[in-house]
């Protein structure tokens, strides 16, 4: 069984977004695990490790690992200090948002989280133009009846 770790990439440099892609993020996380937990930790976490989803615009990253090694993974995430891609590297850090047993629980969390973020952005607008744009985005987020997604992981007991 597996664990899904939802995190966000936070960087002062907006160019860091270019590095938010599977290979760069995967390497950065594995490098951090190797530094913090050594060969043993890296080997443990590598079983079933993958970057399941990313969103370069919001900086959201969803990682997957084995249930047995998610603590090794989570404890190493604060040690990711930069992302490197195509010979460009930018400092950043990872914020862990949620750990779940299935992709679906992480998705539900992310929807709520993004909603809250949008509202906060609306509150912190500095000018009318921004305010109008965000209001438009918020109003366009209405629920539609979705067909159940294919490729859902087994519905694990997400509590740990």
């Amino acid at each position: 069984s597996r664990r899904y770790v939802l995190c966000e990439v936070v960087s002062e440099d907006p160019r860091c977004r270019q590095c938010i892609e599977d290979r760069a993020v995967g390497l950065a996380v594995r490098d951090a695990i190797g530094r913090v937990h050594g060969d043993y930790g890296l080997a443990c976490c590598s079983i079933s490790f993958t970057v399941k989803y990313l969103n370069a615009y919001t900086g959201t990253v969803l990682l997957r690992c084995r249930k047995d090694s998610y603590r090794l993974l989570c404890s190493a995430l604060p040690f990711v200090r930069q992302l490197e891609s195509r010979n460009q590297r930018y400092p950043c850090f990872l914020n862990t948002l949620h750990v779940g047993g299935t992709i679906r629980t992480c998705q539900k969390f992310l929807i709520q989280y993004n909603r809250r973020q949008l509202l906060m952005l609306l509150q912190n607008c500095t000018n009318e133009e921004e305010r109008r744009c965000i209001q438009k985005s918020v109003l366009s987020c209405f629920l539609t009846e979705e067909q159940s997604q294919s490729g859902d992981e087994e519905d694990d007991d997400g509590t740990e």
Partner: protein
Amino acid sequence: GRMERAEPPAATFERRVLRSAAEHHYLRVRLELPDGGARPSVAQFKQLVVAALRELHGEVGAALPVDVLTYEEKTLSAILRVISSGLVKLWSALTLLGFYQNRRCAFRVLQVKPCGGWTASPSVSSRSKVVW
């Protein structure tokens, strides 16, 4: 019979200390360095142990408090002390270490005992002076 689930009493504090569990473990080890070159000093020996931990268990492993209680440079034998929760990390790290300064080597773990378990050597105790 089946135990009923009782309501926990409000705001009590209970502390359990396991006196039987050993706090530290001792390891009697010997480093084999077959090339016959210069032998490590005690400081280099300690550094090697930490390096082994860092390789297998990362910064977390390298931060494990390990003490070299005795060291004999002539025979490359030592007695190490480690907190019991770190025993597996230390033992596995020593076992898997293959090189000292690019020279082939091997650690032999000869004896492992919990704190207070030595019967032979009265000079080694839990308050032994740390060599390095």
